[in-house]
């Protein structure tokens, strides 16, 4: 469904991605692991049209994303939950959700249905729906960021380090949510540094180093033999 073929990307002069090839099929959870600075977030940004692509192709459901403007990706079914969450801090929780709910073609019935669904996943967001986004705690902001993506009814969610900076209890909650989204049939490209969570949630895992994909295996394989993990992610 989402295919990156040999993608090169640059930030200014810095050649940050070298021939990255990754595939996510419909309904799959795919993990992208690697230490800091190896290019995991840049890979997501390349998909979102935010990094300058200098080589290779990115296609979604067969369609080349080259000519698609950044605001067209949501309509195609690609949702993004960035590393910094990027909640609209001055908008309320509900208004944050509305940025995705008020798409063309949405009826009041569908909108209410989606809102109910999201509130069922995240009851705390319903409680705080009239609170400004900037006043939420880190964990709540992460939930809002995920809810905001869900509201786009996406085919795939690009999930960037959702557990970073969160307490262990919240990490477990995020794990739950990833499972639930998977059960719902949403594909997820999960960028993470938290290895156990990724190996548990994902079916397949890519490991990146220095801007390129170094290893690709089924999560089960990596769970059984952790040496590769230690080699690329340990010290």
């Amino acid at each position: 469904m989402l295919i990156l073929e040999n993608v090169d990307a640059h930030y200014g002069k810095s050649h940050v991605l070298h021939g990255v090839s990754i595939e996510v099929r419909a309904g799959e959870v795919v993990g992208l692991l690697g230490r800091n600075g190896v290019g995991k977030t840049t890979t997501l940004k390349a998909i979102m049209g935010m990094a300058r692509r200098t080589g290779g192709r990115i296609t979604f459901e067969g369609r080349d994303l080259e000519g698609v403007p950044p605001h067209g990706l949501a309509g195609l079914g690609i949702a993004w939950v960035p590393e910094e969450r990027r909640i609209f801090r001055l908008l309320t929780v509900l208004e944050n959700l509305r940025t995705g709910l008020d798409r063309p073609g949405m009826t009041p019935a569908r909108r209410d249905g989606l809102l109910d669904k999201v509130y069922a996943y995240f009851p705390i967001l319903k409680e705080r729906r009239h609170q400004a986004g900037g006043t939420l705690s880190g964990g709540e902001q992460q939930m809002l960021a995920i809810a905001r993506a869900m509201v786009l009814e996406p085919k795939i969610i690009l999930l960037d380090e959702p557990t970073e900076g969160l307490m262990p209890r919240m990490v477990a909650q995020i794990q739950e949510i990833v499972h639930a989204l998977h059960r719902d049939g949403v594909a997820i490209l999960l960028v993470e540094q938290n290895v156990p969570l990724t190996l548990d949630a994902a079916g397949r895992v890519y490991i990146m180093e220095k801007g390129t994909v170094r290893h690709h295996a089924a999560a089960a394989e990596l769970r059984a033999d952790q040496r590769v993990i230690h080699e690329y992610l340990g010290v």
Partner: protein
Amino acid sequence: MDQIIIQTLHGLVNGMVLAMVASGLTLIFGIMDIVNFAHGDLLMLGAFVGATVLGMTGSYWLALVAAAIVIAILGALLQVTTLRPLIGRDPLTTILATFGVSLVIQKYALWQWGPSVRNISEPVRGDFNLFHLQYPWYRIVTAVVAGLILTGLWLFLKYGKYGIWIRATTQDRVMAQAMGIPVPLVYTAVFAIGSAMAAASGVLFGPFAGVTQTMGFDFTVRAFVVVVVGGLGNLGGSILASIFISLLESYAAILVSPAQAVIVSFVVLVLTMLFRPTGLFVPTPR
């Protein structure tokens, strides 16, 4: 004492008109980081269009609406043709572009309407009595209309679907795009709204001092002062600052000539930059 009451009224009325001009400017700056030097000239063009429509139809209110619509469309066209291609470039480029547009508009107005002063007659005649003083009704009406328009704008931004899009884009353009919000369209819409408000201000202000090619300049300068004092991109702040500065100027006019009273706004600007650079009414971040 009488002077003080009259000047207070002047200050409030002028403040409301200035607030309309400044709101457009601060919205445009807040969302797309564009310093719109042509803002005052859009106001002037709006006033001329209003005067023309008034001449054709005899209706002040029609003139007001027509001017707003025409200039909104013009603003949108300007943004799409001259400013959209410059997105992402050095801010100096857009400043030069709007400056260039300003010159073109001024010369066009000169060519189209000639150098003589046009007249926009007041929508309501007569004065109203405050104690033993008399104050023209139309000025009160102007302030009320401006207030209504500003309230409408605030409600639209706060509750309207597109209002939310505008606020989201102002806060985080990239994330707004990721949510599917068509940011280039939002930019154009905001520029059109700002232009419409400038045009409406021009028509509202028409009866005060006549319509000339240079009427925009004073407004541009004071609007920039207000936008900085109120906090760049801060709508509420610019409204408060407009009233604050206009009142100060009016009071100063009791002591010195009105031409010199303008200095007050610059003093406020300098003090704000020195002590509360994020805006007079904006708490300074720690």
